[in-house]
């Protein structure tokens, strides 16, 4: 398969730089800004951003009604969101590779079982079950939450990988490898996985943003980790304190802005990767008849 060099896909580049920007903010931010201000009662209440009437330079993005500094909340919250997404999607992807390859290679009843369960789990509205779980298990750590989220991050990769294995299995070079006595495991690792990489990467990015969305949704319902401020929890407090109709847009606006940058970045990466995996999509965009 001829790959288009990733550096030539503008979508991929823009998306990647958006995500890297958020990562950098999380890494460099704590060096330049006092992140202890993200705790309750460390700042004056309800200040608007510095450039508005009544704003304070000491709190450039303003503060909210519990005395948190919004800039500090954003700096500490953003990396946590990415972390949840990475862990959940990573675990989901590994499970997906395992199940997808098993189903595709063994076929028969194993394939039937895996395919049926995968389709069933895909249909379940995952948020409903996650809400029930988190309503019972109230004291969650971020990593525990990521693991719970990974319960729903495996069906999509499983489905994709199974389909890929089924098509690849009949290709000449895979038959060649099998004829020359390579073991199934070796064929998967050295022949199949490298050929699926763009699909895998695109599916992983999709899953990362799915997991971040689920985590943020739970937090916005007040069901996330309660001790450490996350972006979703900030949105929850903003909604509960009617920040929207009090006109305190900075309270929910900045966390949402960061999340939108993350989601849009991941989305652009995913389409960029799709176009690399399937060059036909790309042609149609560039050719203008």
């Amino acid at each position, binding site marked *: 398969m001829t790959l288009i060099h990733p550096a030539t896909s503008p979508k991929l580049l823009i998306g990647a730089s958006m995500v890297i920007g958020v990562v950098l903010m999380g890494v460099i931010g704590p060096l330049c800004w006092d992140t202890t201000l993200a705790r309750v009662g460390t700042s004056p209440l309800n200040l608007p951003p510095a450039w508005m009437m009544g704003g304070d330079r000491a709190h450039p993005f303003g503060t909210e009604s519990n005395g948190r500094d919004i800039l500090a909340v954003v700096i500490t919250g953003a990396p946590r969101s990415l972390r949840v997404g990475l862990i959940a999607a990573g675990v989901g992807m590994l499970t997906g590779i395992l199940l997808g390859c098993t189903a595709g290679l063994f076929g028969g009843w194993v394939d039937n079982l895996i*395919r049926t*369960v995968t389709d069933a789990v895909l*249909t379940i*509205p995952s*948020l*409903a079950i996650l*809400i*029930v779980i988190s309503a019972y298990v109230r004291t969650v750590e971020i990593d525990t939450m990521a693991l719970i989220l990974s319960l729903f991050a495996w069906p999509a990769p499983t489905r994709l990988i199974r389909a890929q294995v089924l098509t690849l299995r009949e290709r000449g070079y895979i038959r060649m490898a099998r004829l020359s006595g390579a073991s199934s495991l070796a064929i998967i690792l050295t022949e199949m996985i490298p050929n699926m990489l763009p699909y895998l990467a695109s599916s992983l990015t999709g899953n990362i943003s799915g997991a971040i969305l689920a985590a943020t949704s739970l937090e916005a319902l007040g069901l996330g980790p309660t001790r450490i401020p996350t972006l979703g929890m900030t949105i929850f407090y903003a909604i509960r304190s009617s920040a929207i109709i009090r006109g305190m847009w900075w309270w929910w606006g900045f966390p949402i802005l960061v999340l*939108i940058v993350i989601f849009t970045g991941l989305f652009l990466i995913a389409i960029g990767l799709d176009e690399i995996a399937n060059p036909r999509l790309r042609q149609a965009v560039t050719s203008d008849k």
Partner: protein
Amino acid sequence: MRPLPTGYLIRRVLMFVLTVWLGATMMFIIPRLAPGDPVAAMVSRMAAQSGYVENSAELIESWRKKFGLDQPVPVQYLRYLGNLATFNLGYSLTQFPVQVRDLIAQSLPWTVGLLSVATLLSFLLGNGIGALLGWQRTPSLVRRLLPVTLTFTSIPFFMLAILLIYVFAFGLKLFPVSGGYGRDVEAGLTWGFISSVVYHGTLPALAIVITSMGFWALGMRGMMITTAGEDYLILADAKGLRPGRVFWRYAVRNAMLPQVTGLALSLGGIVGGSTLVEYLFAYPGMGYLLYQGIVNQDYTLIQGICFILIVATALAVLVIDLVYPLLDPRITYHR
């Protein structure tokens, strides 16, 4: 039109049962895997809220009995499944004599109404946009302008909902901030009530339509590009059929089919996302009821709603699966 083969029908119904069973089982098992006793945790939370709970040990004991937690786990599980199968969802913990079933019955029509309208609109709009984007003969001006409509594609429903409330309800005061209908109208099949429902439902529906139609548009664009190379399109062109006919009857009709399957697969996500939209708009549907359950720690209510959400989604998927063979006569009924 051929009737559906019995085998296919049975497989789809079994799939429905499996989905609902898996969902219910996950809701049963996972909370029990967590360390700690849910009832004791519930009482200690009550204590934390009200300062002191009298006879907490006896309270824990009586609640355990009431919820059947003194029974062995397999017995609990069978009883749980039996109750769900008969839609016996128990009593609401916070509004005690009221049954969870009745609370849900009041809010279900709101959710079903909002979601079916929003999903249908976004499906049609998205596929229309995608079809035009993927069609070589679309005027290039249109093709340049259309991607603007996809700006919000990657944004979650509820974030756009917050923005919409802020801009159109708080800022411009064009639409109501919350609720399902005005306080001044009587519920009933009157023109005033219906227009009030539509007026209140516009923003929540917009939040769902704008954010989800891009997903359909992207998929449709891909499918249209793939169909563009097919022989039957070249033949249709060579026969001198009108371009409109080629577009609708040959290209779109074939490209749509995988999108219908996609609809079945993504319904779960749409249902989940819309619960947050309802909660933001205080829309009187399941999502808002669910939020009230969460705030009041009404576990039977939370569990009941989530179960119904799972059943409703699985049912919608079943319907799509059964309609699909009618749309695509070529289907062989073997996946």
